[in-house]
């Protein structure tokens, strides 16, 4: 018998904050390590092997420690307040995304009624932080990078929102738990029929949203030297660039898994598979998505800024608009086919 614990609302909040603050950095470290290793093995090399003993598992801890010891440099002509605020404007949303992701049927920090709306809104707040960072650095490369990031995130926000809208229309709810519950279709990618297209659009737009290759012009290291973060150093660099990048990577993988891959549900609704707990399914699906994102990076060269914009406005957005039409017709004329 588990003794019943009653907690006040404040205590519950504190526990939730504690859980989030423990889980997000751990996820980030695991994903960061995975990025090292996956990329290394795709490139015929071993990657980190020494830190920590077993296959270099502690490499990111060592890296973090190194950054901790570095000098924190703020350029003389930078706008100091905006410069340091930008870190928070980027870091905080990256953590807050995790609040509404349902890891299991009841394992969720806060099941908001407008969960998906919140998710998409909060994940684009960091754009403001990037613009702040680029503007306040008093560096031309940073400025170019920030403006590229701004333009790119606006362009790719739309396909993400629109492809999510397709899911919302067919599931009939904005709550993420409801969306997952609605995915009882015995197939991998939901919604049926048009799901694969929506999923591909979502994945591509996510890569752009995460500013990862081949859509990494805002941070392209051989052109504008990590763009908006050129002037950031030490711990500030970790918290404004590296950490949010990996945290967002996992977040988008989780969102993809939730919206399209059935979240915590088994891949096929079979009684036997129901035995495996939901969070295991969720973790597996998220890991698959993370691998997908990591796989893309060493495979492609970088696009150019105008090609990227063309791709968003001329291909992805029309496709998702067409998908919304199809989904609308579906809900209107054959709603029973969904159940």
């Amino acid at each position, binding site marked *: 018998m588990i003794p019943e614990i009653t907690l006040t609302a404040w205590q519950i909040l504190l526990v939730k904050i504690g859980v989030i603050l423990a889980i997000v950095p751990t996820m980030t470290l695991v994903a960061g390590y995975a990025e090292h290793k996956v*990329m290394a093995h795709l490139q015929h090399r071993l990657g980190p092997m020494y830190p920590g003993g077993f296959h270099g598992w502690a490499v990111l801890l060592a890296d973090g420690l190194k950054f901790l010891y570095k000098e924190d440099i703020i350029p003389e002509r930078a706008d100091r307040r905006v410069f340091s605020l930008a870190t928070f404007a980027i870091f905080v949303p990256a953590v807050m995304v995790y609040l509404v992701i349902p890891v299991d049927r009841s394992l969720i920090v806060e099941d908001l009624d407008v969960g998906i709306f919140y998710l998409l809104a909060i994940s684009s707040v960091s754009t403001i932080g990037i613009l702040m960072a680029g503007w306040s650095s008093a560096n031309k490369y940073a400025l*170019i990078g920030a403006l590229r990031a701004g333009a790119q995130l606006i362009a790719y926000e739309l396909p993400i929102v629109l492809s999510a809208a397709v899911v919302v229309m067919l599931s009939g709810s904005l709550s993420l738990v409801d969306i997952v519950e609605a995915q009882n279709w015995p197939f991998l990618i939901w919604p049926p029929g048009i799901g694969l297209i929506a999923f591909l659009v979502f994945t591509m737009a996510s890569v752009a949203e995460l500013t990862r*290759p081949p859509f990494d012009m805002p941070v*392209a290291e051989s052109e504008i030297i990590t763009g908006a973060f050129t002037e950031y150093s030490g711990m500030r660099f970790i918290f404004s660039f590296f950490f949010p990048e990996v945290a967002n990577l996992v977040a988008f993988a989780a969102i993809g898994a939730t919206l399209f891959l059935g979240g915590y549900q088994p891949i096929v609704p079979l009684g036997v598979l129901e035995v495996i707990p939901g969070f295991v399914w969720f973790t597996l699906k998220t890991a698959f998505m993370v691998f997908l994102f990591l796989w893309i990076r060493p495979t*492609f060269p970088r*696009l*150019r800024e*105008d*090609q990227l914009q063309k791709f968003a406005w001329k291909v992805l957005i029309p496709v998702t608009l067409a998908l919304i039409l199809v989904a609308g017709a579906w809900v209107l004329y054959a709603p029973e086919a969904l159940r």
Partner: protein
Amino acid sequence: MAIDQQRVGDRTPVHDPAEIAKIVSGANLETEQMVLNVGPQHPATHGVFRLLATIDGEVLVDAQPIIGYMHRGYEKLVEARDYRQITNLVSRMDWLSGINNELPLHLCLEKLMEIEVPERAQYMRVVMLEMNRILNHLMFFASFGAELGAITPTFFAFREREDIQLALEMATGGRMHFGFFRPGGIREDVPRGFFAQALKGVRQVMARLDQYEDLLVGNEIFKQRTIDVGVLDKEIAYNYGVSGPIARGSGIDFDVRKDEPYLVYDRFDFEVQSAPNGDCFDRFWVLVREVVESAKIVEQAIEAMPSGPIMGKVPRVIQAPAGEVYVRTENPLGELGFYLISDGDRRPYRLKIRTPSYNNVSVLPHVLKGQMVADMIAILGSFFFVLGDIDR
């Protein structure tokens, strides 16, 4: 993989500043031009090279290369050193192809002093020159990919380089600056196992190159980034004295090894690769194909390797008789020429070093005007220059 003779349709428009100004004024928008300093420390410049770029949004209105950060004054230094010392000095000009830099000096001396170089030494030189060329080309294969954001080719190319690097290390003891040629021959005979290692290296490159080529040349994004970008016209290339893979990418099929064979290059069967369009894609394509040609030469040279001495009859003190001679050789990056003026001393009276990258880079303002910032990186990468080779 064959190259299209003429590509039509879907040409990326070159962004004409005047045209942009027209659009901007029509929309009643004012934009300010911004001067952007690319370098002297910038990852795309492979060293201390500075590009003063005036940009309007993402478009380059003007670009002026500024060089001289690596100037070491070789032309003055060689006047105070004797010929043996110069061997090691000049190999540091283009540090990616050290042994290729040593060659023209010795050819100059052998011409002036009328030294007969034994066959074995000549073949050995060819083997090493071509292996060095492969190393150099693979390096640029790697760096060009990296500049376009493709990180994987870098690691592939470096893995291939290693076997060839090892062969050269066996013979010379060096990995970058070999110092292996001597007037009249080479320093010493190669150790046992050298030929096997060299053959292993070049055969591996030949076997795997297609795969690597597909990784970049066959990639749709790569094509979009490079085709019709940074077009260098044939006549302009001549006018600026552009040579090497960059000139051959513009439809000029000259190669000193074919036109005026030195050493024993006339005995080997190889082709001069050239491509007609003059854009980044063609320059890169030529570079990659040349690796195969070099590998073919190495194979043939090792098969036909004669035995015998490795040094000709050379006086104990190297002292060129008075005279002037210009010797040009095909460096991996283009025509490397030494104009040697000797007054009969043990030192050169004057040694004019004509390096390929110097002429190649001087054409950059011409090519860069009206391009986008992202293309600028692709163009800089496709001009395959080494800073030490520009500044000397």
